[in-house]
């Protein structure tokens, strides 16, 4: 029907129904592609299903792929078909079909269809962002979309309830501290200890409090479906909920932070709740002598000239004999 509208004075001679041809090929191709995407690609798509947010992101990616396939096919088929049927391979140019006016119907329906797709995707994306509590993305210091049991204020986040296996809703807080070029973790529910290894319990909602001591980093445990920038002086909160499956995962830095940006990686482990509790309490005891020397647990830290990452503005820090020059 579109081609009829484009050429209102179409001659009566029998021409193949180009639009119908494209439409049928498109329908078949889209159906096949979407079936393949849903049944064969979806289960294997990044970032997997090992946490609630990872599964949500995977589902979103799949839906978007299924929406993208018909759009891509429509344009590809249209271009391909036109190149075959509406081309002139001779050396003498010929004029294409003339028409007096641009069809308003085509323009309006095009705008309507693209707007429909766009607003549909917006509603879908917003739902998928809000319902799973931020979809694993960093939500800043006071997250507005929280899972049940999450502390509602910075103060509450600073003083979380203790975590024990089986306690419900069992929210575990992990502070992630980025610095050039290393991640460390502090555990407010285990005496504020600081570790370089990351263990998480199964079937638990985790609150990552991500911050930095120097430049911007981005904490990205890929398999957990979590990503949150680590800004100096900012507590960036991200949530996810682990499933019952134990596994190991890699975490990386996803924001260029200097020469060893690519080396800010480590392996974390999701273990059973009991095993996690054993690890955490053992570490807490083992690290107690060191923990005493750490600055008290806080949501952000400001390093001094003498600490990690300090020294950028020495004249504003406390004067020391060495830096009292003009």
């Amino acid at each position, binding site marked *: 029907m579109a081609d009829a509208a484009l050429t209102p004075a179409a001659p009566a001679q029998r021409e193949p129904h180009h639009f119908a041809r494209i439409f049928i090929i498109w329908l078949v191709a889209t159906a096949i592609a979407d079936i393949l995407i849903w049944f064969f690609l979806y289960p294997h798509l*990044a970032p997997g299903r090992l946490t609630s947010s990872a599964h949500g992101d995977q589902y979103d990616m799949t839906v978007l792929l299924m929406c993208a396939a018909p759009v891509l096919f429509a344009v590809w088929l249209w271009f391909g078909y036109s190149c075959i049927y509406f081309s002139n391979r001779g050396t003498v140019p010929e004029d294409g079909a003339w028409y007096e006016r641009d069809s308003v119907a085509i*323009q309006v329906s095009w705008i309507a269809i693209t707007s429909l797709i*766009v607003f549909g995707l917006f509603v879908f994306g917003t739902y998928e962002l809000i319902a799973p509590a931020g979809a694993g993305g960093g939500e800043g210091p006071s997250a507005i979309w929280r899972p049940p049991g999450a502390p509602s204020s910075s103060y509450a986040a600073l003083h979380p309830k203790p975590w024990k296996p089986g306690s419900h809703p069992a929210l575990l807080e992990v502070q992630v501290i980025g610095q050039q070029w290393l991640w460390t973790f502090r555990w407010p529910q285990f005496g504020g200890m600081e570790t370089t290894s990351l263990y998480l319990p199964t079937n638990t909602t985790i609150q990552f409090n*991500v911050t930095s001591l120097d430049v911007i980093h981005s904490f990205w445990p890929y398999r957990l479906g979590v990503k949150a920038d680590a800004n100096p002086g900012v507590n960036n909160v991200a949530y996810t909920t682990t499933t019952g499956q134990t596994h190991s995962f*890699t975490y990386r830095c*996803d924001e260029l932070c200097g020469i060893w940006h690519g080396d800010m990686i480590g392996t974390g482990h999701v273990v059973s709740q009991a095993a996690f509790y054993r690890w955490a309490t053992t570490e807490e005891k083992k690290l107690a002598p060191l923990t005493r020397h750490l600055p008290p647990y806080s949501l952000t830290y400001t390093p001094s000239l003498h600490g990690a990452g300090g020294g950028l503005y020495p004249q504003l820090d406390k004067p020391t004999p060495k830096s009292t020059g003009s």
Partner: protein
Amino acid sequence: MAIDQELYRPPPPVTPPEGGSWRQRVIPWWPHPNILTGILLGAGGYALGHFLGNVIAGNWARFGNTNMNDVALIIGYLVATLGFLVGIGALNYPVAKIFGLDPPLAKAAPRGLSRYFAYTPDHKVVGWQYLIGMLIYFFTGGMFALAIRTELLFPRYHSHIFNPETYLTIVGIHGTMMMMMMTSVIVGPFGNYFVPLMIGAKRMAYPRLEALSFWLTPPAYIILLSTMLVGGFPTGWTGYAPLANEAVQGMDGYEVAFALMALSLIITSVNMIATIVDFRAPGMRWTRLPMFVWGALTTSVLTALAPPVLFAGLYFMGMDRTVGTALFVDAHGGSSYLWENVFWFFGHPEVYILALPGFAIAAELLPVFTRRRLFGYNVSAAGMIGVCFMSWFVWQHHLFVSGINADMRPLFMLTTEVISIPTGFIYLVAMATLWKGKLRFEVPSLFVLAFYLNFLIGGVSGVFLSDVPVDVTVHGSFFVQAHFHYTIMGGLIFAFFGAIYYWIPKMTGYEMNKTLGWIHFWVMFIAFQLTFIPLFIVGELGMPRRYFEYAPKWATLNQTASAGAYAIAISMIIFVINLVYSMVWARKRSVENPWFSRGLEWQTATPPPPDNFERIPLVLSHPYDYGNPIEDIPVADLRGVPTPAVLAASAAGVSGGSDEIDDPPGPGAGPGDRGGEQ
């Protein structure tokens, strides 16, 4: 409508000074404005600026401890640029005016090759300067891309070609070169060269500003490359603070070079907007404006408004790094978000500054090669205007996981997705123009088709990135990198090469070799897919951008991408061979209008005479009325000064109140020159 350009006359001849003519008095070459004097004064200016900086800040503790005086370097760069501009003669006119003197009259415009190295108000020469300059910048940036892909051939620990500082500097220079030096890749060469020709003007509105806009780019280029001598910069083209605050001196070069380019962009766009608004020939109504001119106009609106924001940000950064303000340092009351916001408030419009000229070239060329009326002229222009407008409301989609304004993410998701509606207009126009056309597969049309196919993938993957849950996975990964290379390299650069093949016969009068053009296209097209499709996958699998070492499981995909990058380089070599062979060696005369285009720029002589048109043409019809069986009207009457009858007919058409784009003027219009309608 258009101001009377007949009033513009070349400057009067120079009267010889008392006591003899120019020739008799032997004046050495160096007091005259020229590029060698510019280079000398630039070098001297650097030394002077550096000395001044050491005088001012040499005993500051923050520099004394590190022996890296950022003040000296920045002042050195600035005075060097000033010296270069003085040497090349950019300041003669304005300074003379400021002191109330008669501006020094130009000697007879230089002829031959030397004028391409001069500060010249000739818009066609500036167009050539831009074209060659942009190709040089593009190939330089491409070399850095090859260096990146070479380093990424091997994952970890095996064999490093660079050390990490060098690698990050290479990444940064590649990005900065491509994103800033290449910003005016189309508006610079083709905008300056063809906008006056396409709107029927004899020159640009502000010829001196036009020259200045180009001559700011070589200092920016040199300064950007010079960062390698002072330790490079570790931030990539985005220059995120506070990493930029703690970076070594190379960062200063990034700031100054980027700021000079921002200045150049602002100047270009002011000139372009004034020209398009004021210099249109009679009959060149807004509804007859070629699509390329619409693209130049909307792009210029963005380049007039976005770079000032960048300029401010760079100024903040310069202050942070020199006098020790702490605008970006959280510990002293600043915020790392400030730079992110300022940068992307510039950066996202910048992305569309790079996309719109591609849209424009594609829409301009497609009707020529399908020989069918451009479908939806109004929709096509509206799409560009819509993109231009919407691009101001999306910048925080770069910050979805940064923790800032988390509650605003749905809004920025919406605006980002809404921008795909006007972008979609571009596809509606293309698809309907292809339909029942008579598409000819010439080299330019192949590049245009490739533009649409590549940009489609870039655009659709952009919708993925706008979806926050998906962005949580792919943000900052190679997926993003592949996405914007599809839009910029696959879109803009393909359109750029299409435009070169399309317009070079007009600019030189010589044909490009078609076989080499075909080989160039196919190698580039296939190699491009080979390079960036694996990078989509590797990003989706979790590889962050700007990695120096990566997990061995990603090696195959990275190696495929590297192979593709080398193949792109080969296609570029083929292009250069074609350019040199066709223009220098073969020099095969091109026919007057090889593509049978109706465009106004094709109606004048080839190559265009110094004043473009003998008389200001009278535009009679729409540039895309191909195959109109009802009334075969030429696009313009080049006899210029219209007869009263023609004028009356044209005026009747103008004031007829009809918005239709194809209303014919009265029969008095006469056939005129019908170059387009063979």
